[in-house]
């Protein structure tokens, strides 16, 4: 009898999700296209260089035969044709894909870190802190951030990034001192008003709280001011040194790209924070959190060891859908000439260059544009598929 017993192998949550994902043909299509795109973008430029000798920057000489037209239609030598200067467009599209995908992934990563921490803390703390933190998100949501991003990119683009780099030390010290101040004020508030609540007249209490609030604001302003003084005395030298070091090693194109990561990451964390908060709210009253609390795990530990991993499904889904939207914003900014700049190129900036010649050399615009559309298409399908696989409850039937 014992020989007939079959051992049933349990499937994990992730194994289950993977199976469901593989059943979804469109998601598999997206996954395959994306994998091919990543391989093409990483290995492609080397292969082209090895096979034909063209790179993204190589301008061949003596190809115009005297009539000054250097842009050739697609041929076996140049599968996507060449651009205005005669550079191989395939090499440029692959090189640009590196930047576009990098911007998408790194900015999403930035938004992931900010959004997950913010949402998890708000959801776990609950009550007044949650209310305040979510109100801030609501308010930022209503701002036409694209206007501010445009201003940020254009005034701090190019050599002006040095100013931001130079201000980095003082920004960090301000941030740290404000966090310390917030913790101190929070504990002081609890210590003072926690015991007063029932003993004192309500009007007097309100007055005291008001005074405390004004005092807190004054302390915050004082902390910022002290930091600025400190900056003038000590940190400015450090900031200048940092800027010098930076400008010696890095060219302008790179600093524009770094600025893009920062700007795009900063504006795309809002929805992530909302998603994570919702998840945490529904998780935090479950038994395993109570068990963790009972065994003396700290709030920090509960949030990042217990709550965040359990909320991972929707986070992954949303992150997959953030990548295409960030890439679209990057392309839009590059199209306006504010994003990725020469000598670097992205799909957005290539398409923007191609648009000028659309009626004579349409391939200059169509190839980068279609490559980008195909990538976004796959990312969106993959995101949809992942949502169905990882999050069957919110499945869109």
């Amino acid at each position, binding site marked *: 009898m014992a020989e007939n017993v079959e051992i049933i192998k349990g499937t994990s949550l992730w194994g289950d999700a993977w199976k469901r994902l593989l059943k979804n043909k469109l998601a598999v299509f997206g996954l395959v296209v994306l994998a091919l795109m990543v391989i093409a973008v990483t290995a492609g430029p080397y292969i082209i260089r090895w096979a034909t000798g063209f790179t993204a920057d190589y301008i061949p000489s003596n190809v115009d035969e005297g009539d000054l037209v250097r842009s050739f239609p697609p041929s076996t030598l140049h599968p996507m044709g060449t651009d205005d200067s005669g550079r191989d467009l395939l090499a440029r599209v692959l090189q640009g894909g590196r930047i576009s995908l990098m911007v998408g992934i790194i900015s999403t990563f930035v938004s992931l870190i900010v959004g997950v921490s913010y949402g998890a803390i708000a959801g776990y703390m609950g009550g007044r802190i949650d209310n305040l933190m979510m109100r801030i998100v609501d308010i930022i949501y209503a701002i036409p951030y*694209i*206007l501010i991003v445009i*201003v940020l990119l254009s005034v701090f683009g190019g050599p*002006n990034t040095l100013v931001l780099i130079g201000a980095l030390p003082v920004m960090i010290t301000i941030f740290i001192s404000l966090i310390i101040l917030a913790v101190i004020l929070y504990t002081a508030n609890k210590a003072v008003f926690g015991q007063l609540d029932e003993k004192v007249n309500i009007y007097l209490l309100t007055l005291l709280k008001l005074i405390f609030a004004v005092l807190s604001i004054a302390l915050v302003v004082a902390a910022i001011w002290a930091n600025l003084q400190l900056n003038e005395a000590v940190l400015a030298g450090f900031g200048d040194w940092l800027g010098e070091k930076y400008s010696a090693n890095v060219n302008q194109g790179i600093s524009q790209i770094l600025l893009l990561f920062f700007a795009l990451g900063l504006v795309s964390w809002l929805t992530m924070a909302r998603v994570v908060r919702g998840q945490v709210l529904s998780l935090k009253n479950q038994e395993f959190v109570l068990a963790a609390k009972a065994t003396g795990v700290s709030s920090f530990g509960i949030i990042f060891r217990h709550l965040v991993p359990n909320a991972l499904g929707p986070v992954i889904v949303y992150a997959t859908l953030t990548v295409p939207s960030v890439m679209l914003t990057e392309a839009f900014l590059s199209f306006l000439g504010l994003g990725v700049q020469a000598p670097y190129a992205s799909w957005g900036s290539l398409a923007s260059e191609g648009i000028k010649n659309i009626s004579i050399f349409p391939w200059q615009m169509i190839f980068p*544009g279609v490559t980008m559309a195909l990538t976004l298409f796959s990312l969106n399908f993959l995101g949809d598929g992942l949502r169905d696989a990882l999050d069957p409850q919110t499945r869109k039937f």
Partner: protein
Amino acid sequence: MLSFILRRLLIIVPMAILVVTVTWGLIRLAPGNFYTDEKKLPPAIEENIKKKYGLDQPVYKQYLLMLGNVTCRTKSADEVTANGLQFSVAGADFKCFDFGDSLKYVGDSVNTIIFRHLPYSATMGILAYILALGIGLTAGIVAALKQNSAWDYGSMALAMLGLSVPNFVLGPILVLVFSLGLYILPPARWGGVANIILPVITLSAIYAAYIARLTRAGMLEVMRSDYIRTARAKGLSETVVLLKHGLRGGIIPVVSFTGPALASLLAGTVVVERVFAIPGLGNIFIQAVLNRDEPLILGIVAFLSILIMIFNLVVDISYGFLDPRIRYE
């Protein structure tokens, strides 16, 4: 309800001030000036420019003056302006929303520029959103009602395409086909109705796609809910069930999408204006930023922020009419 509206209206003021302050701070923090050029100015002329634009005053005074320009401040005796709101209280003359003069468009006040170029962008934006609503709602409802049919898959695939093709790719392709290939529509510029067709289609594609997806999901969820079963059990006709009960609940996600859509419609119009050479506010804004035309930048930022925040408020209020379960505290 009234207190909710009042509270939200009051929040708009500090928000707009915050947005303007951040923008101003960014412009001021960056090195350089609107008058610095390749050619260096003689110091005497630079002094005069600084005096004329109040740049010789301490920073906090400049900030307050800027803030007064974009909100309200008292009018000094020698100022002649008819822009914005003008009124006098207790003998003092006040003016509001007079954003000052542009630094680069000589002789034009910011208010004039905004209201000269806003109509182009606004027309395009509104028409595009209406078109997107029409296409998106129809496609979404059809897809939800005929779930898993060819209609469903077809419209959802199209919606996915709309989400993935950037508008600066779609626009030129449309121009290539309809203007340079078939010669039926003008490729660019503002003129008659024919000129506006391609830009509006380009602009609306991504919103139509979003709305179709949201409507489909919302309708599918609502059509399975208990109150729809009740409505059917009461013996209502399928049309009434669908339009009066189903649609009202099903389009709530679409309504909440309107807020973010309006903010991103701004970005969309900038691209479409560039592609189709339309003299809208988006292009003016980009030009102003590149020129560092401070009053114009701040004026446009303040104007659009307030406009969008008011629209968002209207959207939030309209929830209550669509879904009686939502209450305002």
